[in-house]
């Protein structure tokens, strides 16, 4: 009971003291509550700009963007032993977010043929393939600058292929090259009968996905 009276007295004193302080502050301080209203309010949500651009070097040695109507490999190319075809590529991130990209080569279709020994064969069994990447054009030239270098970098059999994902920062670019060749050692087993040439239909896809 005595404690309760004692605490009541203390709290009363503190309250009075606080009121006195507040009153004293009023003589030298000002209190304001600012507010403002605006009739027009616009909330803008900016979506990240995600843009992949892939180009290849055409017959005029100019970079040309690839789209669904572009043929990267020349239709006039005729493969025979020792023939090498190289297509330089440029992959650019023209967006505002970094992404990872990969290159895929897909055999969409093929046609078998009969060779000079009356045997059926598939053209892709006698072709070699390779994909190389570099950060600059100069580095790419070191990889595919001449026939020997291109052949060294095209040792895989031609089949559906997916490269590893490579990171590409916003505004960055990568250079690459697709190499398809027929080795010099290919004998007459791929020299087809006049009844119809063998062929392989290749699809090239570059896929980019945002980094997580």
């Amino acid at each position, binding site marked *: 009971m005595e404690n309760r009276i004692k605490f009541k007295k203390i709290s009363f004193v503190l309250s009075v003291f606080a009121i006195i302080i507040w009153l004293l502050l009023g003589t030298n301080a000002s209190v304001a509550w600012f507010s403002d209203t605006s009739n027009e309010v616009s909330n803008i949500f900016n979506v990240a700009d995600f843009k992949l651009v892939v180009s290849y070097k055409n017959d005029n040695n100019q970079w040309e963007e690839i789209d669904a109507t572009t043929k990267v490999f020349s239709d006039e190319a005729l493969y025979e032993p020792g023939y090498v075809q190289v297509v330089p590529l440029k992959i650019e991130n023209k967006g505002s977010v970094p992404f990872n990209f990969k290159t895929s080569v897909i055999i969409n279709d093929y046609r078998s043929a009969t060779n000079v020994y009356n045997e059926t064969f598939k053209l892709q069994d006698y072709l070699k393939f390779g994909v190389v990447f570099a950060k600059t054009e100069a580095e790419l030239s070191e990889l595919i600058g001449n026939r020997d270098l291109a052949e060294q970098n095209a040792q895989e059999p031609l089949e559906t292929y997916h490269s590893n994902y490579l990171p590409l920062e916003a505004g960055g670019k990568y250079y690459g090259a697709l190499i398809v060749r027929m080795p010099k050692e290919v004998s007459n087993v791929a020299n087809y009968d006049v009844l119809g040439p063998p062929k392989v239909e290749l699809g090239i896809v570059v896929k980019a996905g*945002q980094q997580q």
Partner: protein
Amino acid sequence: MKNIYEDFFYVPKHGYGKVKEKVLYSRIAVMIGTIIICLAAMSFVAFAFFTHDIASQTNTIKTAIFDAKISILDNEKKPVNVIQSGKFEKTANLKKDIVYTVTLEKDGNAKTGFCVLSGEDFSDIYHTQQLGEDINADGGKRNELKFTIKATEDVSIVFFSHWGTSSKYADYENADDKNYIKAWDNVEITVTPIASNSLEEDEKTELKTPVPSVDIPDSEETTSEPQETILPDDGEEITNATENEIESEATSSQSSSSEQLSSEETTSVELKTE
């Protein structure tokens, strides 16, 4: 609060009582409510994973084809029947002691290739120079190749078109390679009967299969005619001197048809059968 908890959420520990029905219903209700809230949240929550693909049109990869046209003239400039005995394979029957002029002409859209000569009556296998692109040819290209053949016995020769570069091409500068036929070089080729081990490995792989049996269409059936003595117009018998004249006439007559022939000696190919 305590009563609400005990009625709707309390699950007694194992062995200390049964779970009330209200507890089960309340749990089901909470689960359904959570699902409804999540579904409702989808209407005002946005999320995205950006991807971008670029695909080209389908690219066609195809091959070239190489073949060779063959024409053979005898010493009287008469054409010899060349039979299509297989795919890219042609056969000609040559008589002994007659100098034949063979002309090989590139056919097909391949840039280069060559011909392989072989036969059942002789063991050697001959490669010709490249037809088409050849950096060692005048102008880097050779679309036609001429040479002569002379057999010591009647012989059947198979000409097999082969694309690519001959394995003997590296011996281009090697004058001792008698099995590499060049244009109008002074080369003699001696043919011996086939021995079982005489073929080199690379020649075996290049041929891939033995010479197939001749499949002669009815319209191109060959006839085996008895040998006749060939007499010049004036009835004189052919002597060695006359043979040389005929040979030089046969070679000089080809100069007007294509590239100019040198005045040097022609390539003479002797085929001997034993």
